[in-house]
């Protein structure tokens, strides 16, 4: 056994740390803007700054840019130290860093341009999806390479969390990104309707689980003991809750689709696993908090520990609330409301944000061989941030309760008591308070940036930190420490090479095979439901481009309060031609899935109303907070992809006849003329090739084919 001297790579950690700060500020700033647009619709200045387009920018930026870079910062710092080894390859580290930043930049460009798949937290189009997959593989090789050349036999629990993160995110991302490209920046999800919804929320829920939770738990298990200078309360508990957490989490996704047209048994499965999740989630929280046993006096002084304590408490609250919201009783009231927004921000601002801040405050002085510039300022940041969370969450809870109760309230004669606009008016004030909370939180972040920059200025950066450890005496570690050529490393390990090849092949194979196998058969249709006409299809793509699904749901749940307000409840057979599904998850505006049901006439509006509404929503609906869409009226519809779109849809199983793509444009113009004539009757002159015409056609298609209640016989 010989002792080896080696160096930890701090440069890659520094790079990710700066990226975390930069994207954190950007993502939260965008968040602040979108929150203000909800009470000042005039802030939707241009098309690329409108709510529907930059709300996905906010979510993507804070999840994948801010939290993503924070994860890599924490992982690259702790992994090297826990394994007593430098990262496997500096080149891979750098490639990982730059590829990830490029993806973020690509997202920041494409999303405001309206280039979006519409699937929440997976809005990026297919070329970027492929880039994400490649980056993830680079990260994986780098991480597993480091694990293999480690000098520490025992793999610490934190690393297990990192491993589970890597494996699961890879799988989720690949399956949810099955899409058929129409052009370089446009694709359709291969799944349709209910199926697409299930895949999306299987992904969406586990993105929370394996991107926002497990990597942070892993980091917590490294940094918390270091910060408190105490071993973790129970290492045994950490192992126990790790294995139980990863086994249970993956099944909880369907709780996002309660009371939808997803089969009941699948919904129930989601509920049961969600409730079970309390135990492993709280295992982590309790273990983190009890690590401070006998050291609570330090919390009084140390801002870093304060951040960790509130972060863990927020985690505990969010993971208690999650199962609660998964119960059908609560979900009936809370789904589609701001309650869910409050819930995710307690987790996001409290858990992910505060733990990230704590780690940066702790790590940066160490990497620069100095002390934090100002403890006092860090304490101020803590209090401002905490107040920010409260000012964010409390108004959002009240807003959520108001929406939930008001939407369901009937008057004495059995009519709905409030129209939708009244419920919007009621919560505007709460939206203002929420923005104030966000502003506080962001100001805290600026304080941190200043503090950390000052800290860096007074220290000197240790790019390569020296460390010593004994080599592992196992045969397969013989090469460790020597700068072996990477390919040789794989070649001398047939099993490893086999595994990597298998991964690569199965990714490719799945992408091609799965759609073939699973998409050929369709959910049985309701005979009256027709595929979208070319004009409606183009209108639907505009709906996706503008991100209408961020505020309008397309799913009526089987409650009297909803069937009274919107019309017949939704059936799975209605959505079979929806690639992707557009159910939405939030009702900032009313549900639209019966928007074309003229017979029921609950949410139907004529062409002229839609035209005026898009031009200025306040004119038709005083008090509305919807952005105006004047560009829909000015822009000519881009029909260059129409043929490709029809062909793609046919490949996915939509029954367009062979050769229909040639007639599509003529059909489109014919239908457009009809709408133009309708508008003309009311004195509005519109060219048939304008975008607004396609949008109106799509809105009038929604729910139009569904026969009145009673006549619908859904076949399963």
């Amino acid at each position, binding site marked *: *056994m010989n002792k080896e001297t080696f160096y930890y790579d701090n440069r890659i950690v520094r790079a990710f740390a700066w990226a975390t700060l930069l994207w954190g500020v950007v993502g939260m700033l965008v968040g602040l803007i979108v929150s203000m647009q909800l009470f000042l619709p005039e802030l939707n200045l241009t098309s690329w700054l409108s709510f529907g387009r930059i709300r996905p920018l906010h979510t993507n930026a804070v999840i994948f840019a801010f939290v993503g870079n924070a994860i890599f910062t924490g992982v690259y710092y702790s992994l090297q*130290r*826990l394994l*007593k080894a430098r990262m496997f390859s500096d080149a891979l580290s750098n490639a990982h860093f730059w590829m990830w930043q490029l993806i973020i930049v690509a997202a920041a460009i494409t999303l405001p341009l309206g280039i979006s798949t519409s699937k929440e937290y997976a809005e990026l189009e297919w070329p970027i999806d492929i880039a994400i997959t490649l980056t993830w593989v680079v990260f994986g090789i780098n991480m597993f390479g480091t694990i293999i050349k480690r*000098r*520490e*036999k*025992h*793999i*610490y*629990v934190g690393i297990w969390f990192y*491993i*589970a993160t890597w*494996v*699961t995110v890879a*799988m989720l991302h690949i*399956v949810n990104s099955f899409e058929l490209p129409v052009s370089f920046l446009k694709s359709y999800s291969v*799944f349709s309707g209910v*199926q*697409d919804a*299930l*895949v999306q929320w*299987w992904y969406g829920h586990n993105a929370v689980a394996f991107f926002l939770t497990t990597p942070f738990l892993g980091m917590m298990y*490294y940094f918390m*003991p*270091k910060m408190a*200078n*105490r*071993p*973790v309360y*129970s*290492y*045994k508990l*950490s*192992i126990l809750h790790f*294995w139980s957490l*990863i*086994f249970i989490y*993956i*099944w909880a996704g369907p709780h996002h689709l309660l009371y939808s047209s*997803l*089969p009941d048994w*699948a919904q129930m499965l989601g509920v049961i696993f969600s409730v079970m999740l309390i135990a492993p989630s709280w295992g982590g929280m309790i273990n983190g908090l009890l690590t401070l046993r006998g050291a609570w006096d330090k919390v009084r002084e140390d801002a870093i520990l304060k951040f960790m304590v509130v972060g863990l408490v927020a985690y505990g609250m969010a993971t208690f609330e999650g199962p609660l919201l998964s119960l059908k009783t609560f979900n009936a009231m809370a789904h589609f409301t701001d309650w869910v927004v409050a819930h995710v921000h307690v987790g996001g601002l409290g858990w992910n944000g505060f733990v990230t801040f704590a780690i940066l405050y702790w790590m940066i*002085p*160490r990497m620069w*061989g*100095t*002390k934090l510039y100002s403890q006092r300022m860090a304490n101020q940041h803590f209090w401002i941030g905490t107040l920010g969370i409260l000012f964010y969450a409390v108004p959002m809870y009240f807003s959520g309760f108001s929406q939930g109760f008001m939407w369901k309230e009937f008057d004495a004669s059995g009519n709905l008591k409030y129209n939708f606009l009244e419920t919007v008016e009621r919560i505007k004030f709460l939206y203002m308070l929420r923005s104030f909370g966000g502003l506080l939180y962001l100001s805290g972040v600026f304080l941190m940036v200043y503090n950390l920059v000052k800290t860096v200025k007074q220290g000197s950066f240790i790019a390569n*930190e*020296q*460390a*010593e*450890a*004994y080599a*592992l005496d196992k045969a397969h570690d013989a090469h460790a420490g020597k700068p072996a050529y990477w390919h040789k490393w794989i070649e001398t390990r047939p099993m490893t090479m086999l595994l990597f090849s298998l991964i690569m092949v199965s990714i490719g194979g799945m992408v091609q095979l*799965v759609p073939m196998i*699973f998409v050929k*058969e369709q*959910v049985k249709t309701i005979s009256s439901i027709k595929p979208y006409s070319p004009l409606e299809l183009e209108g639907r793509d505009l709906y996706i481009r503008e991100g209408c699904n961020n505020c309008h749901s397309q799913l009526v749940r089987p409650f009297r309060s909803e069937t009274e307000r919107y019309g017949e409840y939704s059936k*799975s057979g209605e959505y079979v031609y929806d690639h992707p599904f557009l159910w939405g998850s939030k009702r900032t505006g009313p549900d639209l899935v019966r928007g074309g049901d003229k017979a029921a006439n609950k949410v139907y509006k004529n062409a002229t109303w839609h035209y005026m509404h898009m031009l200025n929503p306040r004119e038709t609906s005083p008090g509305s907070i919807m952005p105006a869409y004047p560009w829909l009226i000015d822009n000519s519809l881009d029909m260059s992809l129409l043929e490709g779109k029809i062909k793609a849809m046919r490949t996915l199983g939509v029954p367009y006849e062979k050769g229909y793509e040639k007639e599509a444009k003529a059909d489109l113009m014919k239908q457009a003329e009809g709408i133009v004539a309708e508008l003309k009757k009311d004195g509005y002159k519109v060219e048939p090739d304008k975008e607004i015409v396609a949008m109106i056609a799509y809105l009038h298609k929604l729910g139009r084919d569904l026969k009145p209640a009673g006549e619908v016989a859904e076949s399963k």
Partner: protein
Amino acid sequence: MNIIPLLILCSLSLGLLFLMVFIWWVKSGQGEDLVTPGMRVLFDDAPIAGTESSTSNNTHTEPSTESKN
């Protein structure tokens, strides 16, 4: 709902993969010592002058990475 078999397949194979790793975890002795790993984390810093962590250093001189078996 022909997507359900795919998702169940994916979720089960993920679970199976984790189970295999868990079996490896047990067999390779990763779970034999569930006390010292929690302590060891505290001793992996290089000494930095002037910081609190300098109280918990100098462990590199002893074979902290050596496993007992």
